[in-house]
Each structure stands twice: as structure tokens, then as C-alpha cells.
């Protein structure tokens, strides 16, 4: 008799296991010789991170079809000698400790008309999920975990502008988690650049109602016209040209900003990072190990997806000739998805004088789970997937913002050089909603919300003093460098009446409408 293969449908099971910090012990080590070490750093990092989230219970769905993995299988793994299943397992993490009996009672209660009660229990303690792929050496698939709290123990602010809500269906319960998807590179269909871009697109494509591609689709799109490594699969990395091609293919516009040396205290890189990350455009960071940077030989780099900012309380003056402070001076570190490590990994930003060139460059130091810093890496570039109609860059916003901030600091000496400049993109509808809380006059609120035509994304310049916001400048993000782009100057509550005339004069000069 011929053996029966695939004659029946698979059966799923749900198991509950208590969480332990040695999370990796739940994963079977690959049998046979593998190139990487075991356990992979990602599993150790997950144990540390979930412990910080105070995870108590893991619920395991033993049969889960994952959209990303099944496409990877169709593109690549289906042609392996080893028969990889097309399904995964999915782990759900909970803050509450509960066992299988409790789980069964939750489902029983829901089945007897008490869904809200069961749902309340599960929702309260839900800490997200991780897909476990049937790939022995790279098991971590699509994972969404929440971020850590908004303040660090030392009082720094954590800001995450690129996260979104993910709806999770578990045995009839609808749960949700707010975060940004992460996954480990498998070196089959994805390398670091693929997974970093995949994470980045998870936010911006969703926000723009565009299709969110799988890693395999990103690799295919990137390799359509250019093969940097000679073959696209197995995936051996992407260059910036290929990354740009993939971004374009999925309906967005790639903006590349090269890292600039720090001169006269002006940290250009921090300004770019702040502007794009605070706007919710998770940029890819291209970095290279410092040791390689010091050497003259060309080396490959690494890609990260930047998700969050670590900010100090006060902006400070970085250049004595400037009469203002740049909000970028508050930036002390970043939270990144590093597929060598895990989601929301902290990386410290510092300065380093390159011996070879004497340039001062922006250096990133990523902290590993055991507290040991990784090797330092030099920032090479940001790659930002932008909606195509956003033509105005942070640099061009800053060109106007820096001039206005400098003039504001000089013309309002009572502010004691404490004028602070901030810059980002906001959606016009969001700004209009917020503006109704600015304390504008009725005429001003009407003029802004009913009579002023705004681009969907606004370039927003914010000027603040010690007593709060002074004024905002709204810029048309669709405009080109050749044309003026200032639409309106909106007065804020921190502006004294005698200073209003100054802002009025600014508005006339830059061709903007004054709204007060």
C-alpha cells in the first residue's frame, strides 16, 4: 500500500506554558551542523525583553498559517529537499499567569454568553505574539510586541511614532497589540535589509492604505533590475539602489540622506533622524562597523529599521553663534529593530573622530541582552520610504526653520536664547483637530480650518519658548525647491502680544497667511 500523504486536514492544538527568562529553552536545537551558534541571540533577547514586559504565560497555537512565511515557502522553501511545512506555530504572550484549565474556562464562559468577561481578562494581559517558523536555524517569524513605557528609569522619554495597532484573532477572541512587526532574517528569502524594509513598510504602507509586501516580495522587487550579489535567492543582501527600487515598486518614494560629519556642533544626522522618525516614517539606517570605516577597504554594511527615539528633557545650544536651540539636541539614542537581535533594541548615539579623515561622525552603539555593548558602527545613510507626494524634505523645512528660529531668538531677547525649533510632518486633518485646542480667536480658527487649503501632509515647523509654543509655520509638503512653500503662520499661546507683530512680519516676508 502506498503511504497516505496529505489525505487529511491537520489538527491544531493550544498549549499553555509558563514563561521563563531562558525563553530559548522552549526551542529545540537544530540537529546536525549549523553555521550559526545556538541559541540564536534573538531568542536570548526575546527572553530578556519579555521578562521586562513581565510576561508570565505563553499560549501556543500549534498550527498557524502566516501570510509572510507561506509566501516565503512558495517562493523558496517549497523547492528544498527537506519538506518544510507551509504552516507555523504562533506564540501569544500574557502578563497574567494562567493554565490550561483557566484557558478552557475562559472559552467555556464565552460560549455561555460571558464573552466580555473572558475578553476582558485576555485583553488586560495581552503582550503580543511571535510566529515560530519551521526553520530550525531562524525560527522567529512575524512578531509584534509592545514597546516599553514612555519613561526610562533615568527619566528619559521614549517616543515611538512608527507603531500601529495589530488585530489578533485567537480562538474566537479578538485581541490587539500596538507595536511594529519584527522578524529574524532567514538568509533564504531575506537578509538584514529585507527585514528592515519589511518592518518600515509595515507602518507607512498601512498608513497610506498600500499593500504590505512579504519579505519574499521585497526581495523579488529589489532584484528586478539589479543583482548586486549575483543572485537574488538565497538572499545575500541588498544595496541602496535595490532598496530604492523595492520602495518604488510598492508605491512609495525612496529618499536617501547621506550621513554628514558634525561641524561647529551642528549634528545634522540627529536632525534628520528626529525629523523623519518623529513623523512616523520609520527610516532604514545603513551602518558600517567602525573598524571597517577606519580601514580604507570597502566593506558591506548592515541595515536597521528605526522605530523610536530616546529624548532628554531639555534642548541645549549646540553652537554659540545661534540664538536658538534645536530639538535634535535632545536626542540621545534610538530604538531599532535589529534582526541580529530583536525589536526595539536600544542604540546609543555618540560622536567619534575618524582617525583616517579627522571627521566627527555619528556612531551607534547597540546594547546586547547581557548588557555588553556591540561593536560601534558609523551611520552611513538614512533611507526613508515616503509617500510620493511628500516632496519637501526635512532639510528644506529646516532651511526656513533655522532662519526663522535664529531671527526669533534675536528679535525676542526676553526668551534668553531659549527659542526651540522642532520640525516634522503631520497629517493636515490631525493638525486641524489639534489647532482647535490652541486657543485661537474664533476668526483664526475659522480661517485655518475652513478657509486655508492644506496639503495632506504638512511640513510643520514649531517654535517654542520657555513658556510654551510661540508659533507654527505650516508648509506645503508637495512643493518643489523652486517655489515658496509656506502656507500659514499660526500663533500659539506662548506668544506675547508685542511679539505678534514680529510673527506678522515674518508671515508677510515668507508669503504665509497669519492666523491668530
Amino acid at each position, binding site marked *: 500500500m502506498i503511504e497516505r500523504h496529505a489525505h487529511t486536514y491537520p489538527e491544531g492544538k493550544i498549549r499553555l506554558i509558563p514563561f521563563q527568562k531562558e525563553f530559548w529553552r522552549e526551542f529545540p536545537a537544530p540537529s546536525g551542523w549549523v553555521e550559526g551558534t545556538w541559541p*540564536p*541571540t534573538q531568542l536570548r533577547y526575546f527572553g530578556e525583553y519579555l521578562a521586562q514586559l513581565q510576561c508570565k504565560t505563553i499560549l501556543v497555537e500549534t498550527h498557524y498559517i502566516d501570510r509572510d512565511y507561506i509566501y516565503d515557502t512558495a517562493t523558496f522553501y517549497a523547492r528544498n529537499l527537506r519538506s518544510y511545512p507551509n504552516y507555523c506555530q504562533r506564540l501569544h504572550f500574557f502578563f497574567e499567569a494562567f493554565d490550561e484549565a483557566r484557558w478552557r474556562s475562559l472559552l467555556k464562559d464565552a460560549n455561555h454568553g460571558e464573552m466580555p468577561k473572558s475578553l476582558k481578562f485576555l485583553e488586560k494581559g495581552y503582550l503580543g505574539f511571535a510566529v515560530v517558523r519551521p526553520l530550525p536555524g531562524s525560527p522567529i517569524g512575524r512578531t509584534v510586541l509592545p514597546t516599553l513605557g514612555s519613561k526610562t528609569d533615568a527619566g528619559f522619554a521614549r517616543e515611538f511614532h512608527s507603531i500601529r495597532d495589530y488585530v489578533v484573532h485567537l480562538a474566537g477572541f479578538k485581541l490587539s497589540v500596538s507595536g511594529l512587526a519584527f522578524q*529574524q*532574517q532567514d*538568509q533564504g528569502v531575506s*537578509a*538584514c*535589509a529585507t527585514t*528592515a524594509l519589511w518592518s518600515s513598510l509595515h507602518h507607512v504602507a498601512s498608513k497610506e492604505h498600500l499593500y504590505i509586501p512579504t519579505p519574499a516580495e521585497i526581495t523579488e522587487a529589489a532584484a528586478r533590475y539589479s543583482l*548586486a*550579489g549575483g543572485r537574488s535567492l538565497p538572499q*545575500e*543582501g*541588498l*544595496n*541602496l*539602489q535595490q*532598496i*530604492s527600487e523595492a520602495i518604488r515598486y510598492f508605491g512609495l518614494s525612496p529618499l*536617501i*540622506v*547621506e550621513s*554628514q560629519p558634525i*561641524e*561647529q556642533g*551642528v549634528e*545634522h544626522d540627529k*536632525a*534628520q533622524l528626529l525629523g523623519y522618525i518623529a513623523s512616523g516614517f520609520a527610516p532604514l539606517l545603513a551602518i*558600517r562597523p567602525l573598524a571597517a570605516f577606519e580601514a580604507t577597504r570597502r566593506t*558591506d*554594511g*548592515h*541595515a536597521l529599521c528605526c522605530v523610536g527615539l530616546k529624548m532628554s528633557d531639555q534642548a541645549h545650544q549646540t553652537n554659540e553663534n*545661534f540664538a536658538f536651540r534645536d530639538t535634535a539636541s535632545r536626542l540621545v539614542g534610538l530604538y531599532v529593530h535589529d*534582526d*541580529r537581535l530583536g525589536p526595539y533594541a536600544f542604540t546609543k548615539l555618540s560622536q567619534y573622530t575618524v582617525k583616517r579623515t579627522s571627521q566627527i561622525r555619528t556612531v551607534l552603539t547597540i546594547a546586547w541582552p547581557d548588557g555588553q555593548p556591540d561593536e560601534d558602527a558609523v551611520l*552611513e*545613510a538614512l533611507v526613508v520610504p515616503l509617500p510620493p507626494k511628500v516632496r519637501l*524634505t526635512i*532639510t528644506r523645512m529646516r*532651511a526656513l526653520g*533655522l*532662519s*526663522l*528660529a*535664529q*531671527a526669533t531668538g534675536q*528679535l525676542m531677547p526676553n526668551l534668553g536664547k531659549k527659542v526651540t525649533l522642532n520640525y516634522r510632518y503631520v497629517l493636515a486633518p490631525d493638525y486641524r483637530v489639534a489647532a482647535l485646542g490652541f486657543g485661537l480667536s474664533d476668526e483664526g480658527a475659522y480661517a485655518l480650518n475652513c478657509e486655508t487649503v492644506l496639503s495632506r501632509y504638512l511640513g510643520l515647523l514649531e517654535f517654542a519658548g520657555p513658556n510654551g509654543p510661540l508659533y507654527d509655520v505650516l508648509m506645503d509638503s508637495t512643493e518643489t525647491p523652486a517655489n*515658496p512653500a509656506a*502656507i500659514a503662520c499660526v500663533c500659539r499661546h506662548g506668544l506675547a502680544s508685542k511679539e505678534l*507683530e*514680529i510673527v506678522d512680519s*515674518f508671515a*508677510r*516676508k515668507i*508669503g*504665509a*497667511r*497669519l492666523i491668530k
Partner: protein
Amino acid sequence: MKDERHNRADNPQAESNVREGELKPRSEEEKRVWEVLEQARQNVKSVVKKELEAEIVTSELFNLRLRTPAR
């Protein structure tokens, strides 16, 4: 005249200035504010220049391959 103006900002203030030709300050105080603003533009010019240069991508950067394997 009407045809030439249809792509300009919908800004009555700006339009009236355009009608008058070159933008002129309304008062001595406004003149001073504009002078300070122009001086400020000169003060930050080198910063802006540096940052605009960062948006011009070199072929070396464009070909930088990102491929660090997992640890």
C-alpha cells in the same frame, strides 16, 4: 493678468504684495525684522548647504551593500 495668477498661493496678503510688485515693508519696524531675518538666513547658510549636500547621493553610497548575517 488673471490667467497668469491662477497658480499662486491663495493668500490675499501675498497677492496684494504681488500686485504692488516688489514686497515692501509696512513700517520701519517691519523693515528691521526683515533685515534680521535676512541676516539669520546668512548665519545658517553653511548648515543648510551641508544638509542639502547630504541629499545628493553618490554612486559609492548607492552601491553600498547591506548584508550583515545574523549572529
